C-alpha cells in the first residue's frame, strides 16, 4: 500500500534529520558551545513571552534586560579585578510548564549556560525548578512565591518574595488602624495557587484581628463575569473587601465593584494595583486601594548594582515609561544576590557543576543588602525576615501605610473610609 510505506520513509527521513539536528557536535539544535576561552557569562532564561503569563512575565524580563545593561555598562561582573560582561539568552515557554522544563534542560545541557534566571508563574516554576535542581543550577525566582514550591526539599531554588501566605499579612493588619473600627469583611480569591493562598492568608489574619469574614469565596480563573460575585459581596455589606488574585483578577474585581456600585470602606488586593496598568486604567477610582507589597522606591535601601531603590525605580521609569512594581524589585534583588555570590567566590566563566554548587552554597550562606532590602535565604530557599508591607494609592502614587516603619522609612496615614465611586 502506497500510504503505508510512504509514512515509514518519512519517518526514516525525519529520524535521519532529527539525528543530524540533535547529535552533539554536528548540530543545529545544540550549537556547539565555545568552551574554554569564554570571556562572558552566559545567562539563560526560559520565560513566557507568549501565552497567559506573558503580561506578568514581561515585567520580569524588563528587569533582566535592565540588569544586563547596567552590569555591562559598568564593565561586567567583576571577578578578581577583571570585568566579564553578561549575555542573556531568552527562550519562550509559551506559558507551558512542559515547554519550560524542556527549555531549561536545553539551557543546562546543550547551551551550557553559566547561570540561570527564574520564570514567572507558579506551575512553570515548579516544573523548571525540578530540572534546575537536577542540573545544579541555582534558580532564583523573583516572582514565584507559592508556599508548596519550597516544601520539596530542593537546595537550588530560591525566592526573594515572601511566601504567599505571609505576604498578605500587612494588607490585612493595616485595617487595625482604621477608624471607625471595621467589623465585617469579605474575601474572594481566584482559583489558582497564588490567588487561593493569599485569600486563605487574608482570612487567617482577619480572624486573628477579630474581624468577621462574612463572605469567603474562591472563584474559577476562567470566569468572565465578576459582577455576580461582587453583588453577593455587596449584599453582605462588609466594611472591607479583600481580593486574592493576580493582576488580571484584581483588575476585573475592581471593575466589577465599580459596576455594581459598591464602594467598601477598605479595598485590598494581594497583587495587581501596583502593576503600572492598574492605576493608569482606573485613574482616580484607584485612589485609596490597598495592595500587599514588599517594597517601595522610597525605601532607604541600596546595593552596588542598581544603586538605591529610587534610582532603580527611575531607571525603570526612564527605560520603560512606567513606575516600578515591587515584583520587579524582588527580581532585581535575586539578580544582585546571584551576582554577589559569583563575585564573592571569584568564579571565572564558564561555570561548571562544582562552581554552581559553590554558588548555591554561597547563596545559602550570604546575608546582603539590596535595593529591595535585606536578602537572606532560609534553608528551604525562601527569603527570611522580610516584613511584608501594605501600600495605598494616594494621589496616584503608592505609599506605605503599614507597618509604621521599615528600615527607617515612615508610613503615611491610612485613608479610610474610601470615598464612594460616584462621589469622585
Amino acid at each position, binding site marked *: *500500500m*502506497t*500510504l*503505508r*510505506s*510512504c*509514512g*515509514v*520513509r*518519512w*519517518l*526514516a527521513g*525525519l*529520524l535521519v*534529520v*532529527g539525528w543530524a*539536528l*540533535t*547529535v*552533539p557536535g554536528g548540530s*543545529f*539544535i*545544540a550549537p556547539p558551545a565555545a568552551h574554554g576561552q569564554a570571556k562572558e557569562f552566559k545567562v539563560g532564561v526560559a520565560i513566557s*513571552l*507568549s501565552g497567559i503569563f506573558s503580561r506578568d512575565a514581561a515585567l520580569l524580563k524588563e528587569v533582566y534586560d535592565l540588569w544586563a545593561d547596567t552590569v555591562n555598562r559598568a564593565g561586567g561582573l567583576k571577578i578578581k579585578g577583571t570585568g566579564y560582561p553578561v549575555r542573556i539568552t*531568552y*527562550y*519562550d515557554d*509559551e506559558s*507551558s*510548564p*512542559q515547554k519550560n*522544563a*524542556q527549555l531549561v*534542560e*536545553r539551557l*543546562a*545541557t*546543550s547551551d551550557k549556560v553559566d547561570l540561570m534566571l527564574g520564570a514567572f508563574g507558579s*506551575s512553570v516554576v*515548579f*516544573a523548571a525548578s*525540578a530540572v534546575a*535542581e*537536577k542540573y545544579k543550577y541555582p534558580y532564583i525566582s523573583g516572582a514565584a512565591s*507559592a508556599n*508548596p514550591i519550597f*516544601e*520539596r526539599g530542593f537546595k537550588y531554588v530560591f525566592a526573594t518574595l515572601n511566601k504567599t501566605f505571609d505576604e498578605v499579612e500587612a494588607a490585612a493588619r493595616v485595617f487595625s488602624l482604621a477608624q471607625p473600627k471595621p467589623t465585617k469583611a469579605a474575601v474572594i480569591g481566584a*482559583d*489558582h*495557587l497564588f*490567588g*487561593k*493562598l493569599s485569600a486563605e492568608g487574608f482570612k487567617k489574619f482577619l480572624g486573628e484581628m477579630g474581624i468577621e469574614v462574612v463572605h469567603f469565596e*474562591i472563584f*474559577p*480563573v476562567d470566569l468572565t463575569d465578576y459582577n455576580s460575585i461582587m453583588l453577593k459581596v455587596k449584599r453582605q455589606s462588609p466594611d472591607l473587601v479583600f481580593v486574592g488574585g493576580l493582576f488580571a483578577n484584581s483588575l476585573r474585581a475592581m471593575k466589577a465593584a465599580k459596576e455594581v456600585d459598591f464602594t467598601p470602606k477598605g479595598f485590598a488586593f494581594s497583587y495587581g494595583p501596583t502593576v503600572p496598568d492598574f492605576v493608569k486604567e482606573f485613574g482616580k477610582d484607584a485612589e485609596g486601594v490597598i495592595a500587599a507589597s514588599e517594597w517601595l522606591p522610597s525605601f532607604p535601601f541600596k546595593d552596588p548594582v542598581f544603586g538605591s531603590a529610587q534610582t532603580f525605580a527611575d531607571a525603570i521609569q526612564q527605560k520603560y515609561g512606567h513606575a516600578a512594581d515591587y515584583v520587579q524589585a524582588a527580581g532585581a534583588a535575586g539578580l544582585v544576590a546571584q551576582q554577589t555570590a559569583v563575585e564573592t567566590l571569584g568564579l571565572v566563566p564558564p561555570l561548571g557543576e562544582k562552581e554552581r554548587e559553590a554558588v548555591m552554597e554561597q547563596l545559602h550562606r550570604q546575608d546582603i543588602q539590596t535595593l529591595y532590602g535585606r536578602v537572606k535565604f532560609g534553608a528551604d530557599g525562601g527569603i527570611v525576615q522580610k516584613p511584608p508591607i501594605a501600600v495605598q494609592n494616594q494621589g496616584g502614587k503608592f505609599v506605605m501605610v503599614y507597618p509604621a516603619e521599615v528600615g527607617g522609612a515612615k508610613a503615611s496615614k491610612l485613608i479610610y473610609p474610601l470615598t464612594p465611586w460616584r462621589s469622585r
Partner: protein
Amino acid sequence: MTRWIALLALGVLLLLPIGVGPYPIRVATVIFMWAALAGSWNLLAGYAGAVDLGPVVYHGIGAFVTAALMLKLGLPFLVSAGLAGVVAMVIAYAVGTPTLRLRGAYFAIGTLALAESAKQLALAWDRLTRIPLTGGSAGVSLPLSAGYVLFYYVMLVLMAAVTAAALWLRGSKFGYGLRAIAENDRLAEASGVNIHCLKRRVYVASACVIAVTGGTAGYWLSYINAADVFSASITFQMVVMTLLGGLGTPFGPVVGAAFLTLISEFLGTRFVYHYLIAIGVIIVAISLFAPGGLTSIFALVRRRTEATA
C-alpha cells in the same frame, strides 16, 4: 518492507540514549509523548471517524491517578501508571457508552464540554469530596525521578504501541469495521457492524494510552495541577499534530509530532519573538498545499516518480 523499516527505526530509537546527551533525549521524549497522544486521538478520529475534542480528560485522570497511587500507596511508578491506565479504561467505558451515541458535531462539542466539566470537577474535587486527590488549584507535587532514560523508553513504548495498533488496523477485520464506520456509519450499521461496540473499544483503548502518557508526563514534570493537565490546549496540540502529519495514517501523528516539535525547537531558539507567527504561516501553507498532511507529500512524490519511471 514497511515492517522492516519500522522495526529498524524502532531499533535505532531503542539504542539512541547510548550515544546522545540528555537534551536531545528530552526532545525525543517530548516527540514520543505527543506522538503517543496524537496517535491515540488518530485511532478514534482518523480510523473510526469520531472527532473527540475531549481526549485530555484521560490525560488528566492518568496524571492524578498515577500521582495518587505513588504518593498515597507508595506504589512504584510503572505500576501506578499501568493502574491509572486501567482506571481510565473503566471511566472511558462508563463515559463512552452514552457519549459515543452522539454523532458528528454533537460528539465533538459534547466531548469538549465533557473535558471542561472534568477540569472544573478536578479543581473542585478536594473541596467537594473531602478526599484529597487533585490538590485543587494548588496541584500535586511529585518526588523527583531518578533519570530521564526511563521516560524516554516509556514514551517510546507508548508511541510504538499506538503506531503498531494503527498499522494493525489497516488490514484487520476490526480495522475494516472502523473504516466502514468512519466512511458511512449508517451503512456500516446496516451491514452488521456494531458501531457503538467498535467505537467504544477504540475509545477505551485510546483512553488507556492517553492516561498512561499523562501519568508519565506528570511524574516527568514532578508537578501537576488540574488547570494544566486538563488543558484544552493539549487536545488542540493532539489534533493539530495529527492533521499536520496525516489523519488516518499510521505514521501521520508521529510525523506531525516530530515536525511541530522540531520546527518549534529550531525556530523558537533562533527567532524567539516571531517564531510562533512563522509556525502559523507554515501550518497554513502545509494545510493548503498538502491537505492530506505531510505524509501525503511523500505519497505524491512517490507517485510522480513511479509515473515517470
